[in-house]
């Protein structure tokens, strides 16, 4: 089910929804409209993420949670409103993704509890459902933070209570809920200074608002697949790989679905499992429990044997984690170089780091020689890299001023026709490579690439290895230094300050895009933080972040 396929319910159906108390089918129309409108606005909700909340894709998480919920309810379609809501809540629980997804699943769980055993929903019942939703959502956290989705659902509930006092119809009530949600979302920066600083509203609250707004729009017969707001994401946090570690010796992941026997004691269950393995998690839903554990090879059947004493085992899944990790490792080790057709131009690039190598490879490099600042490759290494390629025309990108000479010597000893583009750093190498036309002549390519490397400026951030004075800048050993196009422009105690000074030196009014390649000593999260600092000052500039993996330089920055 995608938004392209979404068709508004027929007018007759919508009319029915407006008039009478709604049944399970009607509730499904509302849920679906909420999901579709949220999906339409997903990118906008994602963009509302404020650093430093470690949750980079609220919109996506909420959509995935809603999709799981809708799928579950769709599979169990019934006219009973209580059963529909229950299935929806069940799906939300199972599919909950991210912080906002978890809270959303809790909202639907409360919502459905109020509807339990009811055939249809009238305004009074909707109010009670909203009250339960709010209560349940707040119960999930010890120290509720206001100015979040919690505040929005609370304010929506107040509006629902007010609407009941005014004897509103269901659709009037929904409208009041949406209006209150809108006001509440707009007020979130008043509660959370961090939102105010970033000039955004709370993302989770906004997501919830879209869900209810979708319902109203559907009832009004408005289109749901055109988004009113499209914004570019502010921060793109990559935390997806944060949890991919495997404990030493815990080689198997075992997941068991089971129905607990009467008198099942969760605490005892945990205690027993702890003797078997780690990363123990037990979830429950619909009377079924799901257990997750990591164990060592010899004990991989123990959780199953033990669980069988505690209930009826329905399903067992087992995976060799070590195997997975190795596969992942192998995939990382292999860099897919571009094969060269006979007679075409091949490009050889010198790359200081693994991440940068894969970017070079993806841009069409035929061979990579490892090397950089303190590890200049030899002439032989360079020659060996291209001598066996099935072509006699080669372009070398040295990507370091100290390697240009070695490249020239390599060209002298080879019988092939070689052009050397004197790229002094990696960003220049990328810029040159983007102009590659493998079927053109060597001269054309050379000319075009030389032009390209003039257009890119490079910043480099590294730590000084000795005290020195260069280009009029005094540097203490251990200070962070910034170079702009190879010239020392600043030395500062922190990376943040170095970047600030570096950017002060760059011709920012000509810059359209900045790319960060973070290397040794800097994590993705830190790189994201640094990029966010720049975004704040230059919101109109596009910033990309890549894992360069280069040694010595914490950051290589390309200004284009």
């Amino acid at each position, binding site marked *: 089910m995608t938004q392209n396929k979404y068709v508004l319910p027929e007018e007759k159906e919508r009319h029915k929804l407006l008039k009478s108390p709604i049944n399970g089918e009607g509730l499904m129309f509302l849920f679906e409209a909420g999901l579709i409108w949220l999906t339409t606005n997903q990118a906008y909700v994602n963009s509302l993420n404020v650093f*430093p909340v*470690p*949750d980079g894709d609220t919109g996506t998480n909420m959509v995935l949670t809603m999709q799981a919920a809708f799928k579950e309810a769709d599979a169990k379609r019934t006219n009973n409103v209580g059963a529909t809501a229950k299935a929806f809540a069940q799906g939300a*629980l*199972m*599919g*909950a*993704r*991210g*912080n906002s*997804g*978890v*809270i959303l*699943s*809790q909202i639907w*769980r*409360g919502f459905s*509890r109020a509807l339990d055993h009811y055939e249809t929903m009238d305004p009074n019942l909707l109010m009670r459902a909203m009250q339960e939703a709010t209560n*349940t959502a707040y*119960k*999930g*956290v*010890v*120290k509720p*933070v206001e100015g979040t989705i919690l505040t929005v659902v609370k304010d929506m509930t107040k509006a629902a209570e007010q609407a009941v006092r005014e004897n509103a119809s269901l659709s009037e009530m929904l409208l009041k809920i949406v209006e209150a949600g809108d006001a509440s979302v707009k007020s979130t920066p008043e509660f959370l200074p961090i939102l105010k600083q970033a000039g955004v509203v709370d993302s989770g609250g906004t997501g919830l608002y879209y869900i209810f707004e979708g319902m109203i729009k559907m009832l009004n017969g408005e289109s749901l697949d055109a988004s009113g707001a499209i914004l570019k994401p502010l921060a793109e946090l990559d*935390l997806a790989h*944060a*949890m991919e*570690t495997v*404990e030493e010796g815990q080689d198997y992941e075992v997941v068991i679905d089971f129905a607990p026997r009467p008198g099942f004691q*969760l*605490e005892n269950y*945990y205690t027993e499992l*702890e003797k078997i393995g*780690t*990363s*123990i*998690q*037990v*979830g*429950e839903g619909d009377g079924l429990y799901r257990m*997750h554990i990591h164990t060592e090879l010899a004990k991989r059947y123990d959780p199953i044997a033990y669980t069988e004493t505690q209930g009826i085992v329905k399903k067992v899944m087992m995976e060799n984690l070590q195997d997975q990790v190795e596969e992942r490792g192998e995939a990382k080790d292999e860099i897919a170089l571009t094969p060269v057709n006979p007679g075409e131009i091949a490009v050889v690039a010198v790359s200081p780091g693994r991440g940068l190598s894969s970017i070079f490879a993806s841009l069409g490099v035929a061979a990579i020689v490892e090397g950089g600042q303190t590890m200049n490759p030899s002439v032989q290494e360079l020659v060996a890299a291209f001598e066996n390629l099935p072509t006699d025309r080669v372009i070398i990108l040295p990507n370091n001023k100290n390697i240009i000479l070695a490249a020239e010597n390599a060209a002298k000893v080879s019988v092939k026709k070689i052009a050397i583009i004197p790229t002094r750093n990696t960003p220049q190498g990328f810029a040159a490579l983007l102009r590659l036309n493998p079927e053109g002549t060597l001269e054309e390519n050379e000319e075009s690439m030389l032009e390209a490397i003039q257009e890119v400026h490079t910043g480099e951030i590294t730590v000084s290895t000795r005290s020195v004075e260069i280009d009029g800048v005094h540097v203490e050993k*251990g200070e962070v230094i910034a170079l702009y196009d190879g010239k020392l422009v600043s030395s500062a*105690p922190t990376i943040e300050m170095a970047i600030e000074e570096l950017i002060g030196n760059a011709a920012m009014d000509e810059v359209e895009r900045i790319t960060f390649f973070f290397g040794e000593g800097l994590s993705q*999260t830190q790189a994201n933080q640094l990029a966010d600092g720049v975004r704040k000052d230059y919101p109109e500039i596009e910033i990309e972040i890549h894992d360069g993996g280069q040694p010595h330089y914490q950051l290589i920055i390309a200004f284009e």
Partner: protein
Amino acid sequence: MTTQENPLGSIYILSQAIRTVARNAALQSYGVISLTPGNVGESVSKFFNKDADFGVIVKNEEDGVSLELNLIIEYGLRIKTVTDLVAETVKYAVEKTMAVPVKRVDVHVRGLRVSNPD
């Protein structure tokens, strides 16, 4: 205890300080209801001092620390998502406020609190 160097001297961060930061971050994470003693020593300190900082065990590692969290989580939530989030939140808070690299976060779900049985 972890040690950092700055131009004026050394900075020592004791486990107690890391524990407090980790504890508060965990409690602000959605779905976490409380922390609970993770070993006998902590149980004893809880018995004698209700306000003791139990529930977070800090171990020193080469260039950083590893943390063990012992949690009670709200019933009815997807445990996997909650535990993933709390691990990330705690790691982030400790690294951001104390500049101490967190090498591992082990989350032990010691129980669930049932506010509303289904």
